[in-house]
């Protein structure tokens, strides 16, 4: 019998196969966090054990050391094509942005550099609708203009599993295969499939990371959940927002929107 995780999985596999068939060249942003690592697992499922396109990390060299450790371990264990894209320094960013948002915008710039240089037509990103109100507006196949801008007011029609797979020259598409998953689904799936994850998600001394950003803009939350089962139990009752530990989102009510419109993940 199919249970609800099987349905989520099947849908993601379908999207990944559509992307791989319709759009070339294709790359995926692997942030090394729980979502994009579960997505990496889904890619292996979709392509019968293969990972047929490169994994890219937008690297600010500001991730926590455990993150880098996990990254190197998994590349070795699963053996896939990997590329770390170095993001430009913060001094080069738009100085009118609030400080934490400015730090995040380094990744936006890194992504732009990557696409300009390597001519990717499709970038797979592991975002979910339930993360943030703005992400709830996303399409599964979301076209971006040349500079990465997202026109959220004029998005393509998307229904009946038919996606926008044709584009004018000079544009690319973001593909969101796990848009329909929730945080709790990711953890349940990680547990069921025994997918590796960065240990920072588990509580130590009453603190754990719920979301992993760079070390200067993410803080752990108070929690005693030290196993995946406990994390799942915690999520079943919490009302706190997932990104509460991310400084940037509180800078101003509009900063996330400004970031995303200009090409942030």
């Amino acid at each position, binding site marked *: 019998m199919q249970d609800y995780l099987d349905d989520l999985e099947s849908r993601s596999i379908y999207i990944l196969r559509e992307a791989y068939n319709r759009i070339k060249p294709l790359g995926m942003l692997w942030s090394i966090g729980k979502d994009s690592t579960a997505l990496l697992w889904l890619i292996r499922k*979709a392509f*019968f054990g293969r990972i047929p396109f490169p994994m890219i990390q937008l690297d600010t060299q500001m991730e926590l050391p455990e993150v880098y450790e996990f990254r190197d371990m998994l590349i070795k264990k699963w053996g896939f094509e990997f590329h770390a894209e170095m993001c430009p320094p913060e001094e080069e960013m738009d100085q009118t942005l609030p400080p934490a948002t400015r730090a995040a915008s380094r990744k936006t710039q890194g992504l732009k550099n990557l696409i300009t240089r390597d001519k990717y037509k499709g970038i797979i990103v592991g975002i979910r609708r339930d993360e943030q109100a703005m992400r709830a507006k996303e399409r599964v196949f979301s076209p971006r203009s040349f500079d990465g801008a997202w026109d959220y007011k004029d998005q393509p*029609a998307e229904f009946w599993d038919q996606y926008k797979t044709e584009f004018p020259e000079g544009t690319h598409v973001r593909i969101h295969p796990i848009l329909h998953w929730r945080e709790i689904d990711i953890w349940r799936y990680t547990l069921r499939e025994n997918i590796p994850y960065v240990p920072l998600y588990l509580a130590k001394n009453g603190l754990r990371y719920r979301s992993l950003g760079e070390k200067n803009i993410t803080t752990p939350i108070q929690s005693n959940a030290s196993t995946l089962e406990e994390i799942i139990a915690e999520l079943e009752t919490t009302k706190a927002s997932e990104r509460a530990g991310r400084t940037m989102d509180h800078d101003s009510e509009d900063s996330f929107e400004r970031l995303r419109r200009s090409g942030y993940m």
Partner: protein
Amino acid sequence: MSDQAQKLGVVIVGHVDHGKSTLIGRLLHDTGSFMEGKLEELKAVCARRNVEFEWSFLLDAFQAERDQAITIDTTQIWFKTKKRNYVIIDAPGHREFLKNMVSGAAFADAAILVVDAKEGVREQTKRHAYLLHLLGLQQITVVINKMDMVGYAEERFKELSKEITAYLKGIGVTPHSIIPIAARHGDNIAHKADKAMPWFKGLTLLETLDVFEPIAAPVDRPLRFPVQDVYRYDEIRYIAGRVEAGKIRKGDVLTFSPSNRTAKVVSIEKWGSKHDILSAQAGESIGVTLDQPIFVARGDIASLSDKAPVLVNAFRANVFWLGKKPLKVGSHYKIKLSTYEATVTVQSIDRVISTDDLSRVEKDSVDINEMAEITFHSRELLALDPYQENAKLGRIVIVENHDVVGGGIISSEGLHDMRHVLHRTQDNLHAVDHLLAPAARAVRNGHRGAVIWLTGLSGAGKSTLAMRVEHALFSRGIQTYVLDGDNVRKGLCSDLSFTAEARTENIRRVGEVAALMADAGLVAITAFISPFRSDRRRARDAGGQAFHEIYVKADLQTCEKRDPKGLYKKARKGEIKEFTGISSPYEPPEAPELVVDTTTHGIDACVEMITEYIIKTIRGDLRQNVSSLAGKVSA
């Protein structure tokens, strides 16, 4: 774990400002779904901006929306009741945002139609209701909102209920229930409004939602496994795809459409599976390996042979149009049908539906946000199902210039399965006789072949009309070609002089070639003076049923006055011998199929008359023809 129980997708639609966003805000609040701090955060923003707090602000995550106070795009919002999880798809009511509403509603299991108690049923109320019907949504509840503004009057509720029920009945929708609510105050949403509306005895909105069921995957339908891709890893060929209907079992013999080839399932593949997979059902993304190396590609549909989809060249669909450019007869579009892509031509617009009174509107184009019944025609055979039988293979999206510009569900009316025809040609490749009856070509082309024989004096307008008509037919997707003096004298008749015998032979050859063209399925238009009845009779004999004589009439004086090539002048001077009308007779047709008089009618009117006549004759009764063909072939 209640959280792990099924999830129900609910779309909320209705006229702008009737209270959809407010209702959602309220639903979230009353089910305790808000993230801590969200309500306070928004109240603070409102205070800072000096605006009154609205429940709808909870949803309007974008600055832009707060500025315009209308919801822009589909948002998905989660909440849960004791029974299960819900995802609300917020569909905006603004007219040009139909695109987003469709994008949202297509994911829903059930719908809430919001109607303002004071304003009543409005244009978008009707349009959205119709669209829900078109999208196949059957679980619909109506809420009459803002009951506080009509003094919670039972009378008003009854009156509106009657109106909306009548309309919904007209489009074949029976609402599950009609509930009086006041979203702003939470009346009859999570809690029964016993004080305000003691007269209402039905279920609250949340109780109603809990009664609905998620749309189940069509497991008990005939197998449909559209091929998404083919991978070759380590010498293994994986046919990848998602089972869209029914069940696939190891050992099944699959028929692939449209190629009609068969192969047996050796294994069903899912990476990481610890045991041998014996079957997979609707909803599962899998791979299969086959015992035969038959050619299989994306877009092929695998089924079991006794319950295969139909193979057709033409189908009718109920279409909603999102394109900024209108849909027109004769236009070509790309369609996506499951994983298959094909080019289709709009053969006819059978009905444009006015959502206001559901009347038929006579139009030859479909504009943005309109809905219509369209007959499409495709060169390739398409494997499909009527929507009623299998939704996944019974719907198309229409693409123009990179964009999805429409969607449609396929009607069971007028689908004529061509599979027998295909079968027979393959089994009998050695045979010399034509195995294809003319009707088979006619169905593929969407019209029969014909010889349209224009006759008349020089200068009567035959060539001009022929070219204009050819163009008109072509733009309607008709296969057509003009034979005239210029193109036949170049090769086919280059050996002929202009003696009387040679002219007769010229007409004979044109008659034979035109007849072959008609047999091949084309509409051949000939533009020759062809002054003699005997010559034209011979052409009619060659063409048989397909032959149509059209007399392009104009009196000699007029033609001589027009004299476009200066031929009359030369003839009068004796420079051309045996010139029709001057030095040689013209025998007008005795019983032409059509007469157009170019002295009394303008060229446009004549083009229209001829075009209309041709379309009527080559397309009329096409369906009848096909049924008789199907009978013949299987006999």
